[in-house]
């Protein structure tokens, strides 16, 4: 187990390097630059700006400069938020997304997995159909519609929860529920499918035919084994949800980092794009390492690496 973790940490370095390099190339070949603006600027001023941010150097030199800074943990400066470094911006925004994302993810797992399990054991009955409707609703209705509807019902009509902003624990409820909708729906459907897969396995049939005495242990086995797909999607899902959602942060006016995945690209804020991408990559690598560890815990026969 320790060996796996160490290997993954060592592997993470080249992976991050590739991500950083590819993103670096991507941002520079996409048309539009950070200083294209509503009012066209005289070329001299663009030159001044480019010089200030070293964007006048040849691209390979910019790349080396960037990697050099990266090695020291410096993610660079924002061109859009003039006086702020990317480290500052992410240090402010990430904790907010992390809080909201953790709550949401917990909610999604607590609702989605049981819902799926209920649907599976009650297969074909009304519980199953209700679960199906709920999860279809969760995935097919866009996040902004869910958000707007929740605001309308709970904040405007019932007036029991705040419309938006990030002030008290009450302000977390609606965004967390909105953010949890689609992951919960996905987890529910996935749990249902994999429980059904496992339940039909021969050893389950055999165990069942042996009578009730073993049924409880088998139930544990079923849950354990059927959690494999759930755990698999939880890896990337964790990285996605705790780095924030553009839609939810936008609708509820929450100062998280999800918005930067969109706005930084829109503004061609090169270093901020790279910064958010790297933070996401690091979290994804950590989450996926945990997923692989969890496999071995859930089903000891699964070997991840020789």
């Amino acid at each position: 187990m320790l060996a796996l973790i160490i290997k993954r940490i060592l592997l993470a370095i080249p992976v991050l390097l590739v991500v950083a390099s590819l993103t670096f190339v991507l941002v520079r070949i996409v048309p539009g630059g950070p200083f294209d603006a509503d009012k066209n600027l005289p070329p001299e001023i663009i030159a001044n700006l480019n010089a200030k941010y070293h964007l006048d150097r040849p691209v390979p030199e910019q790349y080396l400069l960037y990697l050099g800074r990266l090695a020291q943990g410096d993610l660079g400066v924002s061109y859009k938020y003039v006086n702020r470094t990317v480290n500052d911006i992410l240090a402010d925004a990430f904790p907010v997304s992390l809080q909201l994302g953790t709550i949401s993810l917990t909610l999604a797992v607590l609702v989605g997995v049981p819902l799926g399990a209920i649907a599976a054991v009650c297969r074909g009955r009304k519980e199953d159909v209700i679960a199906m409707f709920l999860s279809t609703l969760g995935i097919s209705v866009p996040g902004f519609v869910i958000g707007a509807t929740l605001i309308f019902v709970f904040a405007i009509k019932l007036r029991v929860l705040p419309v938006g902003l990030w002030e008290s624990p009450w302000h977390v409820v609606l965004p967390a529920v909105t953010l949890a909708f689609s992951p919960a729906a996905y987890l529910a459907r996935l749990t249902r499918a994999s429980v059904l897969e496992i339940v039909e396995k021969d050893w389950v049939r055999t165990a069942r035919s042996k009578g009730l005495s073993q049924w409880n242990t088998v139930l544990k086995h079923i849950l354990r084994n059927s959690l494999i797909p759930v755990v698999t999607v939880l890896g990337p899902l964790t990285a996605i949800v705790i780095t924030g959602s553009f839609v939810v942060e936008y609708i509820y006016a929450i100062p998280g980092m999800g918005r930067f995945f969109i706005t930084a690209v829109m503004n061609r804020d090169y270093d901020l794009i790279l910064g958010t991408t790297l933070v996401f990559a690091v979290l994804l690598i950590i989450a996926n390492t945990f997923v692989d560890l969890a496999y071995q815990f859930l089903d000891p026969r699964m070997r991840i690496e020789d």
Partner: protein
Amino acid sequence: MEIVEKAPMPVAAPLDQSVMARIKRIPTAYLALWIIGAICVVALLSFMGCSLCQYSFDQTSSDFLAGPSAEHWMGTDELGRDLFSRIVYGARLSIAIGLTTAAVAFIIGTLYGALSGYLGGKVDTLMMRGVDIAYSLPDLLVMILIGVLLGRGTVGILIALGLVSWMGTARLVRAQFLQLKNEEFIEAARAQGQSGWNIVFKHLLPNALGPIIVALTFTVPSAILSESTLSFIGLGLSPPACSWGTLASDGWRSLRAHPHLIFFPSLFIFITVLSFNFLGDGLRDALDPRTRLGKNSH
């Protein structure tokens, strides 16, 4: 635990009449199939230029933002265009996107995941790091770039959405394979000297279908909705053309004042996705080797 007692190895049924016959026996799946079929036919007919509605999708009128009525079943939009006609028109792109993205995710994701999971070890580790990299790259940048390279148009949309949607399926397939390849029936197949190809496609894949089908049915709505993001960054449709995704994303701010603008597009996406879910469930049962086995043994 006993070795598998049934002598003939379960084999996935080819998609032939027997699968169809089985789907027919599951009423929800059969109904779902009809609904999807109907939507596809409507999309195809309107694509071929048959006028199915009273109005053209781009015909403006001075009847701005009218609610549903006998004249306009689903009301009109800001330019006085008939919403029902626009939804019928929008079906073609949305359905095409849903289906092709799911297909791309299925083909690339399954092949990649199957290879990674079946081979395991170092290959698996490396291939999964590749997935990590693909996952980490900013989708929006990738899509803008594809838009620039391929220009506007449907092909660009399909490629862009396919390229950013296969990774989840790959990881899921790989996990299923890692788990299943330790099962007795696989070892039995190996002992029988079956080829790796056979084992992957005849034994492993059919047994892993449940979660894969769920993943695919979820690719459909997310692709339909993401398409509106593509329109936003200029890769999508050029107005007055529309899709369910653009109709939904243009209409949601009217939730309180003109709810019909968001309700009807969402309803159609919902019905379609619901049908895909029911069909997916039915398909899984129909393709599942064990269900057939169960039927025989009963």
